């Protein structure tokens, strides 16, 4: 390769030759220089590679896939699947009859007459069938009809169907979230969604929810059965981890199937646990008790005279079950005495009562990951009467989830935690919690809850072995601005195992009716409470709560066994 260079040097010393020969040499030199450059560059690149070569990655133009949604155990709740949509260019179809015959033979659900009409037009485009499975797509493709083709599309599917309806929500035709967690992933939770993406590998980690689909199935089943049994118009249920605020299950019936094509859901199908506000009634007494006991003005030994209606101005407050003797704190709780609870709140004082309700967040809108959140309905002016009625949950309405969250905060040692639908551990929850009452007060409340399930209004919730505690509430519904005595909202909030509460269970039934088995009663103790008991019996083993039997429990069990034996003998 160096020869031309020496040639060139020689040419300078030698006598001049023919002009054409010089030109030839010049070209030769140019070529040699070019080859040298290439050779040099090659050597350089081989010996010193310019940069580390990573694995080759395909560059895809498509947007990152929407994250899958899974429950706390990894069960798939929402995913994207590829679907094909089959279309035709009628002008290219040669034999319409043959095409119609072949297509209807492959896809039997197609309407032959309609298809014929579509293909007979002079248009250049007609959908034959949208969103078909890959098998159907291949079958149509293999028919080889000229003018019939397909485009690939993506479709969001919810394999768990109605089990995930309200929490997961759904997307529109352009896979944009428009309800539930799906909307959260697009809007406020966009940052969270972005953290799931792995653009280099063109995939997205699934979004894991706090939901447990097994618990959700149990709650949906039991609440559904209760609605049917008690002829209620609607119902709902919540199961929450008391220490982390994770919602394991949230059910609102009637619900919907997120897979259905037409998503014009009625107002009745909305999520009443967060987007509706309800007067929770006596369940709120737990808040009043927590406040009164925490203030130190009321102890378990305090006695309240509930023999006569409480008169404030022109209003009189009555009890549902009037007692003819003064009640202790425990009796006020277990008899669910309005008079006693109102007196308790008045003893604490108007200012302090308001301040406490504000502290536990009942005056503010609760906002979780779900976009559907309703503002609480509060009394406009605060007076002595308002304090008295608010004390037993009358005259102000909140989201049911909010009620559950507050009670969870009172029972877990006084740490109020905002509920979440995403995963969260105990440390994270404690870090963000606000302390609303002392540990000792929480302990007393647990005792009251447990007593109420042992002997009080929630005695039907006491599933033997799981140490359930709870508070019932039966509120009259406001119909056209007045309380209607015959339309009730019955609810139950409880927790288990009560010696160290881990899970909160809430059940709500809208307008349950008295049925033969309930001796004419339609109060919570007869409908919401047994429903909660069924739920607890089903979910406690799933959640790993070990049953413990006291001596009394064992006696009860022995009696039950005897009864069954007798039944069998008969």
């Amino acid at each position, binding site marked *: 390769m160096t020869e031309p260079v020496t040639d060139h040097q020689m040419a300078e010393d030698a006598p001049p030759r023919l002009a054409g020969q010089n030109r030839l040499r010049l070209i030769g030199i140019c070529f040699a220089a070019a080859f040298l450059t290439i050779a040099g560059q090659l050597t350089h690149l081989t010996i010193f590679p310019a940069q580390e070569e990573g694995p080759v990655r395909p560059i895809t133009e498509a947007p990152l896939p929407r994250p899958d949604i899974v429950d706390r155990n990894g069960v798939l709740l929402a995913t994207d699947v590829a679907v094909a949509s089959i279309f035709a260019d009628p002008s290219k179809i040669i034999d319409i009859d043959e095409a119609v015959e072949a297509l209807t033979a492959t896809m039997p659900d197609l309407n032959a007459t309609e298809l014929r009409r579509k293909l007979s037009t002079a248009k250049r485009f007609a959908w034959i069938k949208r969103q078909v499975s890959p098998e159907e797509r291949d079958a149509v493709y293999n028919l080889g009809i000229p003018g019939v083709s397909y485009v690939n599309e993506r479709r969001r599917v919810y394999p768990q169907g109605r089990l995930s309806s309200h929490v997961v929500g759904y997307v529109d035709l352009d896979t944009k979230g428009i309800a539930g967690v799906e909307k959260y992933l697009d809007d406020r939770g966009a940052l969270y969604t972005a953290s799931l993406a792995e653009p280099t590998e063109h995939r997205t980690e699934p979004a894991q929810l706090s939901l447990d689909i097994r618990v959700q*199935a149990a709650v949906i089943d039991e609440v559904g059965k209760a609605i049917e049994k008690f002829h209620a118009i609607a119902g709902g249920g919540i199961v929450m981890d008391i220490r982390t605020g994770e919602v394991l299950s949230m059910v609102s019936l009637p619900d919907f199937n997120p897979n259905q094509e037409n998503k014009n859901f009625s107002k009745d199908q909305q999520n009443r646990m967060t987007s509706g506000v309800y007067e929770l009634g006596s369940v709120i007494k737990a808040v009043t008790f927590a406040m009164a006991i925490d203030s130190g003005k009321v102890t378990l030994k305090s006695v309240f005279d509930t023999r006569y209606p409480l008169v404030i101005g022109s209003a009189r407050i009555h009890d549902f079950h009037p007692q003819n003797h003064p009640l202790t704190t425990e009796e006020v709780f277990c008899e669910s005495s309005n008079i006693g609870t109102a007196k308790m709140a008045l003893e604490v004082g108007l200012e302090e009562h308001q301040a406490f309700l504000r502290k536990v967040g009942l005056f503010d809108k609760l906002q979780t990951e779900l976009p559907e959140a309703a503002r609480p309905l509060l009394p406009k002016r605060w007076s002595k009467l308002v304090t008295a009625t608010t004390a037993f949950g009358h005259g102000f309405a909140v989201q049911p989830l909010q009620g559950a969250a507050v009670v969870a905060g009172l029972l877990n040692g006084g740490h109020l935690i905002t509920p979440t639908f995403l995963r969260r551990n105990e440390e994270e929850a404690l870090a963000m919690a606000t302390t609303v009452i002392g540990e000792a007060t929480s302990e007393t409340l647990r005792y009251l809850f447990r007593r109420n399930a042992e002997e009080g209004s929630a005695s039907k919730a006491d*599933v033997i072995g799981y140490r359930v505690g709870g508070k019932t509430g039966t509120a009259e519904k406001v119909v056209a601005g007045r309380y209607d005595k015959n339309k009730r909202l019955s609810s139950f909030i409880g927790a288990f195992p009560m010696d160290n509460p881990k899970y909160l269970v809430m059940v709500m039934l809208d307008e349950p009716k008295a049925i033969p088995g309930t001796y004419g009663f339609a109060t919570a103790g007869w409908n919401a409470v047994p429903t909660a008991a069924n739920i607890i019996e*089903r979910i406690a083993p799933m959640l790993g709560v070990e049953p413990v*039997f006291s001596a009394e429990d064992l006696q009860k*069990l022995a009696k039950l066994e005897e009864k069954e034996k007798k039944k069998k003998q008969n």
Partner: protein
Amino acid sequence: MHKLLNLMLVTAVLVSGFILYSLEHETRGLEREAARYQRGISEEVENMRLLNAEWSSLIRPDRIRTLAERFLGLSTLKAQQIVTLDAISQHVPAEPVMNLQAEGSDPIGAIIDEMKQP
């Protein structure tokens, strides 16, 4: 001298040309192969998504419950059916295996003995 040089250059051009084209051909082949694998992978990924969705709809708890009730005769687990290991160990008879072997009617022991023999 010039002839030899030209001959060498022509040979070099031909040889390098041949190497270049064969390399390119090989590269194209590899590229096609890579694209085919890539397509295969995305098809499999798509299949996995579909199968995952199908699996999830098959393990729907309400469906499993219905099946368990209908075909296995199972019902809701009662708290009293849950027994801890400690409780079980109290009910284990003292020396049943020895007795059975002594009586010569130990079916499981017989199977184990059979397995021990080569």
